[in-house]
């Protein structure tokens, strides 16, 4: 590949921007998935994307509008943002606040920030933007006083933003200065900048309102090395906040944060086996001789990769295997090798056969009830990776580097599993999917679906949500694409406001079966107007589809409506490209269209009795009925 490959590539596709914006965007997006990009190339791509946003997509790339507040030159930030959004399928329209006027833009209610609707706001700050400047403190200054000054200003800015913004704020974490002055002697006494900054960040995590989503620039700066991250030449020359060599990595971190907010985080990691989870080919080398364990450098590298994968599972990522192998032989490594950190129980799907991997990935997606966009695939074989990427659009694909020692870092660089906050359901989720696999095994032995459902011994409860549920409910609002009646995407702040509101009701639904506690898997937001109860939104996690939970929920809802003295339920179904699975839901549940008009709302009268559809779920504690 020539050194100027990205620039010449752009020349090739950039000439017909005005004629075919979507074609150009498609070509750039495709190239971004295939070729590494360097910092200055990303800035050039960013400029092309800026032009594209001015022309506008012809439909394939929805517009995503972001306002950028930066404490330093914002152009590189805007470029990284445009690239990150394009990777997710959006055309970013990025508006930049006047140079270094982030405080004024936030405080002034007449600032452009508040004059238009944006989808998100970015607050890009570095340590030089704090007042007082951490590098200009007296070593004798009282740490608590400085900390309060910083924190109070931040609280003040958040209060202004919170009063006027209805969208998430993506805010940089503040990286250390990397200055050590007198070495270790600075650590125990006095106002050392990096000691204070790390304490400040902890305090900001605690104090930040729910609309603040952190972009972990500090973590990135430390990974790439602070002495390289800070580039004083360009700070003095053009007020650049960090070395622009790292714009591609920065763009990936931004992408991870936005993906989490857009509900596009990867949920499942699909792994190859031979030369991926262990060195060697189990079919040739034998169960006892594949390389994973403490004995030699290569085995140690594979063992560490497996431990990393296990740690992902512990953090809520679902694991699956897709390998060309004899299943029995492959299982034996997990069952018999004590030095293999992963065990059969860690996988929610285990597909070993000699079929096309692209088809097997589809099979895994179906088994787990997940869309391809929520799956990620890793393999050491470039041909398999290319084939799978070609066939399975939307799937994340990483071809592992040959050196087993570089693989944890390669996987981390994808930022596939970035979340904004971790809820306890994330961790339950993996258990729940493993329960699903065991349930699938029961399914094949059950004679019919009724027996299968009855055999699950399910209990559920639909209850009024409290503030303790708000994080999980907002996550479901953000992530659920299939069973989502109106795709409203209520934020955590909105959910909290509904919980406190007089006319709104937020219901959460927990489900357990004899294999797993699935936690909170569905929710309904209701609005009461006189004798009418309107379903504002209804979401359900795809891992509990086809379990008659919607039937259970409606029964419970009818009891609630009856006890409230409500005469009718009304609802709306708003179709999207992903929620066709519930297009008949309201009709199936007994709702009818109001009046002649086939476009009208759906209505269900609340009588003394509700026949409804059968459910195999028993009411647990807290039920309304």
């Amino acid at each position, binding site marked *: 590949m020539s*050194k*100027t490959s990205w*620039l*010449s590539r*752009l*020349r090739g596709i*950039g000439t017909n921007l005005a004629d075919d914006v979507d074609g150009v965007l498609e070509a750039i997006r495709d190239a971004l998935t295939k070729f590494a990009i*360097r*910092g*200055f*190339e990303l*800035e*050039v791509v960013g*400029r092309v994307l800026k032009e594209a946003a001015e022309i506008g997509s012809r439909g394939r790339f929805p517009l995503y509008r972001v306002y950028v507040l930066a404490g330093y030159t914002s*152009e590189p930030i805007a470029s990284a943002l445009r690239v990150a959004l394009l990777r997710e399928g959006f055309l970013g329209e990025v508006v930049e606040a006047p140079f270094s006027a982030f405080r004024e833009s936030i405080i002034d209610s007449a600032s452009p920030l508040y004059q238009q609707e944006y989808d998100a706001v970015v607050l890009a700050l570095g340590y030089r933007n704090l007042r007082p400047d951490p590098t200009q403190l007296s070593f004798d200054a009282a740490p608590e006083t400085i900390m309060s000054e910083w924190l109070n200003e931040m609280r003040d800015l958040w209060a202004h933003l919170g009063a006027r913004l209805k969208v998430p704020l993506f805010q940089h974490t503040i990286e250390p200065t990397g200055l050590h002055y007198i070495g270790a002697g600075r650590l125990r006494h006095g106002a050392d900048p990096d000691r204070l900054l790390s304490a400040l960040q902890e305090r900001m995590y605690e104090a930040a309102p729910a609309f603040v989503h952190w972009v972990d620039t500090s973590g990135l700066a430390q990974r790439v090395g602070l002495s390289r991250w800070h580039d004083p*030449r*360009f700070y*003095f*020359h*053009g007020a*650049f906040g960090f070395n*622009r*060599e790292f714009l591609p990595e920065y763009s990936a971190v931004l992408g991870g944060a936005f993906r989490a907010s857009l509900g596009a985080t990867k949920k499942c990691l699909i792994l190859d086996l031979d030369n991926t989870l262990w060195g060697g080919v189990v079919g040739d080398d034998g169960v006892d001789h594949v390389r994973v364990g403490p004995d030699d450098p290569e085995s140690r590298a594979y063992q560490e990769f497996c431990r990393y994968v296990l740690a992902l599972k512990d953090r809520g990522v679902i694991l699956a295997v897709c390998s060309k192998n004899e299943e029995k032989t492959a299982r034996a490594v997990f069952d018999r090798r004590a030095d293999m950190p992963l065990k059969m129980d860690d996988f929610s799907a285990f597909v070993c056969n000699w079929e096309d991997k692209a088809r097997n990935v589809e099979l895994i997606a179906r088994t787990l009830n997940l869309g391809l966009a929520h799956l990620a695939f890793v393999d050491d074989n470039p041909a398999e990776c290319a084939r799978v990427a070609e066939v399975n659009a939307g799937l994340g694909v990483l071809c592992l580097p040959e050196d087993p020692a570089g693989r944890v870092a390669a996987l981390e660089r994808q930022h596939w599993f970035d979340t904004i906050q971790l809820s306890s359901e994330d961790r339950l989720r993996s258990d729940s999917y493993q329960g699903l696999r065991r349930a699938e095994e029961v399914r094949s032995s059950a004679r019919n679906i009724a027996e299968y459902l009855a055999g699950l011994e399910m209990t559920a409860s639909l209850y009024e949500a409290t503030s303790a549920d708000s994080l999980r409910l907002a996550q479901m609002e953000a992530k659920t694409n299939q069973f989502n009646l109106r795709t409203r995407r209520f934020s955590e702040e909105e959910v909290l406001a509904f919980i406190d509101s007089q006319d709104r009701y937020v219901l959460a639904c927990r489900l357990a079966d004899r294999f797993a506690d699935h936690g909170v898997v569905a929710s309904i937001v209701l609005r009461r107007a006189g004798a009418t109860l309107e379903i504002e939104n209804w979401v359900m996690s795809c891992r509990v589809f086809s379990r008659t939970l919607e039937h259970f929920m409606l029964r419970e809802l009818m009891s609630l409506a009856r006890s409230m003295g409500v005469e009718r339920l009304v609802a709306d179904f708003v179709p999207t490209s992903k929620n066709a699975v519930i297009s008949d839901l309201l009709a199936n549940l007994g709702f009818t269209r109001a009046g002649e008009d086939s476009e009208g709302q759906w209505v269900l009268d609340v009588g003394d009795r509700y026949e409804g559809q059968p459910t195999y779920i028993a009411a647990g504690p807290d039920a309304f009925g």
Partner: protein
Amino acid sequence: MNKELVELIAGVLDVAAEDLTAESGPLSVPQWDSLGHVTIVAAIEDTFRIELSMPQILGAKSIADFQKLIEENRVG
């Protein structure tokens, strides 16, 4: 003139390489603004594996200047 350098600068500024000469610089090429200048520096540093000092960045006023800096830094 170093052909690779000219093509690199042309790519960064989105102009035709044929329109650039050794004397081309911020004064003669409209796309060569201050942001363009620092992007050119980043591109040169990355492509030719050199690092320019701040005075060198400020002092470079043409493609010929950059070419000289590349040669000096390579030798040094």
